[in-house]
C-alpha cells in the first residue's frame, strides 16, 4: 500500500486532527449539509453562514471519522471562511482534482491544504479526504438552488 506513513499523516494533518477548526456550531446559519462514507462509517455535518454579498461569513464542521477526514474538514473550515461562493466552488473542484491525481490548475497559495496531497499514495483513503469537499459542494449547490435555508445529505460513494 504505502511508501511512507508520514507522507499521509503529515504533521499539519495530525495538528488539524488533534485540534479541528470550526468546531463550534453556528447560531446563525443558512446552509446545513450532511455527508457520509458508508464504507468507513464517517459522518460529517457542515453549517455555513452565507452573507448577503455571497461570502462565507462563518463555517462549522463536525466530522466523526478518521484522522484524514477530520483534518480535511478542519482545513476546509479554516480555508473557506471569508471567501466568496464562487471562490469556494472553484477551489473545491481543484482540491477534488488534486486528490484524485488529475491535473489541477491551482495557482494560489492553498496553505495547509497542500498537505492533503500525501493521501494520494493511499488510494483507499482518498474518499476520506474528499468527504468535506463534496459535502461543501452539495451544500453550496443547494443554497444556490433555492437561496434560502438549505439542508442536504450527500455521500462520496
Amino acid at each position, binding site marked *: 500500500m*504505502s511508501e511512507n*506513513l508520514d507522507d499521509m*499523516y503529515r504533521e499539519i494533518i495530525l495538528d488539524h486532527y*488533534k485540534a479541528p477548526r470550526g468546531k463550534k456550531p453556528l447560531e446563525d446559519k443558512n446552509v446545513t449539509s450532511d455527508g457520509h462514507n458508508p464504507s468507513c*462509517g464517517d459522518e460529517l455535518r457542515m453549517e455555513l453562514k452565507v452573507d448577503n454579498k455571497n461570502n462565507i461569513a462563518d463555517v462549522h464542521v463536525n466530522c466523526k471519522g478518521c*484522522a484524514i477526514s477530520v483534518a480535511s474538514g478542519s482545513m476546509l473550515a479554516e480555508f473557506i471562511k471569508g471567501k466568496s461562493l464562487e471562490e469556494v466552488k472553484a477551489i473545491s473542484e481543484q482540491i477534488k482534482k488534486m486528490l484524485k491525481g488529475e491535473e489541477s490548475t491551482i495557482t494560489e497559495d492553498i496553505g495547509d491544504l497542500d498537505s492533503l496531497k500525501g493521501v494520494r499514495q493511499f488510494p483507499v*483513503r482518498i474518499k476520506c479526504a474528499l468527504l468535506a469537499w463534496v459535502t461543501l459542494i452539495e451544500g453550496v449547490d443547494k443554497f444556490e438552488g433555492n437561496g434560502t435555508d438549505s439542508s442536504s445529505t450527500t455521500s462520496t460513494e
Partner: protein
Amino acid sequence: MNSKTTEKDIVIDIQKIKNDFPILKRQIRDNKLVYLDSGASTQKPIEVINAHTEYFNQINSNIHRGLHTLAEEATNAYEKTRTHIAKFIGGVKTCEVIFTSGTTESINMVAYTWGEANISEGDEIVLTDMEHHANLVPWVMLAKRKNAIIKRIPITDDGRLDLDDIDSIITEKTKLVAVTHMSNVLGTLNPIKQLAEIAHKNGALILADGAQSAPHMPVDVLDMDVDFFAFSAHKMLGPTGVGVLYGKENILEKMPPFNMGGEMISEVSFDRITWAELPHKFEAGTPNIAGVVTFDTALTYLENIGMENIHAYETKLTAYTIDKLLQIDGLKIQGPNNSINRGGAISFTDKNLHPHDISTFLDSKGIAIRAGHHCAQTLMKRMGTIATARASLYIYNDEADIDALYDALIAMRKYFGHE
C-alpha cells in the same frame, strides 16, 4: 469439546507450520509480514500451492463429460474432494455435499430455491443481530418478495446471543432460522444444536453459516442437526471461488434447481426436462475444478494437525490476545472478553482512533488486520459503533505475532498523540 482438551494435549509445531506458508516470509517494507486477517481469507501452505500447479500439469480437463483418461482422472479428483468433505463435516452422504463458489452462493442457493418454494406471505424467518451480510441480505430480499417477516435474536452487550425470549422469537410461524455458527466480527460461537432443536420443535428448518467455524474447529452437522450448512474453502487454506452447501438429502430432493444448464439435467427435450440426481442437480455448468481438487489438499493439511488441536491452540492464543489488548488504555474489545465459546476473530475499537487509521498504521509495521464494518452494518449499529478493527487468528499465528500487534498499537497511540 475444548473443555476436554487440556493445554498439554495441544500438539502444534508452530515453527513447522509457519515454514509451510511461503507468503509469511514476505517483507512488508522493512517488516516481516504479520498476517492477522485470516477471517477475511487465509494464506495457503506450499502443499496447496503445489497441488494447484500439479492439477494443471497433470490432469486438467473437464469433468463428468469426456471418456478419456484426463477427464476420468479430473472427475475422480473432483469427487474425491466431495467424499472428503462429507467425512470432514461429520460423515454425511456425498450427495448432500454441493459445490458452490463460496458461502455467499451457498446461502443464496437456499434462498432462491428452497426459499422461493417454501416461504409465503406472513411466514417468519429468524436471523440474529450478528449476521454477515451474506446471511442477511438474501433473507431480507426474500422476505420482501414474499411479504414474509424477518425476526431477529438479539445479542447481549458482551456479544452473545440473548436467548431469554427465544420462545417468542422462534414460533410455529417460523419457517427458517438462519444463524451464523461463529461471528466474523465478535468471534462468538453460537449454540447451533440448541437452536436446531428449538427450530425443529416448531417445524422450522435451520441454516448455519459455517464460514468462520469450519476452518477452526471440528464440525459435525449431524450432531448439530442442521438442515443446511455453508462454508468457504478460501477461509480454510483452500483456493478462492470454492464453497460448500451441505443440505439434508430429503430437503435437497424436493428443492428446485438453482442455475440451469449443462450437467444439472437428466433428459432434455423442448417439452420435458428432468433434473439430474443429487448433487449434480445443483451444479450446473463447469465448476471451479482446479479449486475443488486443490481444496482436498487443504483439508488433509488441516486434518494432519487435527481440528481439535487447531481449536485448542487458537482458544489459547485468543485468550493471550484478549489479555494483551485489554492492557492497552482506551482499547475496547467488541465481543466476548474471554475465550470461552469463542473463536479468534477479535474486534476492537480505540476510544480516540478510527479503525482505518489503526489499520493504516499497523500496515506500516507489516501487520495486516481488517478495519471497517466487516459486512455487518446492522451489528455495528447494535454495538453503537461505525466500524471496528479486527485481528483474526489462524494456525500460523503465535504469541510473537500478538506481541508485534501489541507493540505497534502502543506505538500508534504515541504517533497520534493519545498516549
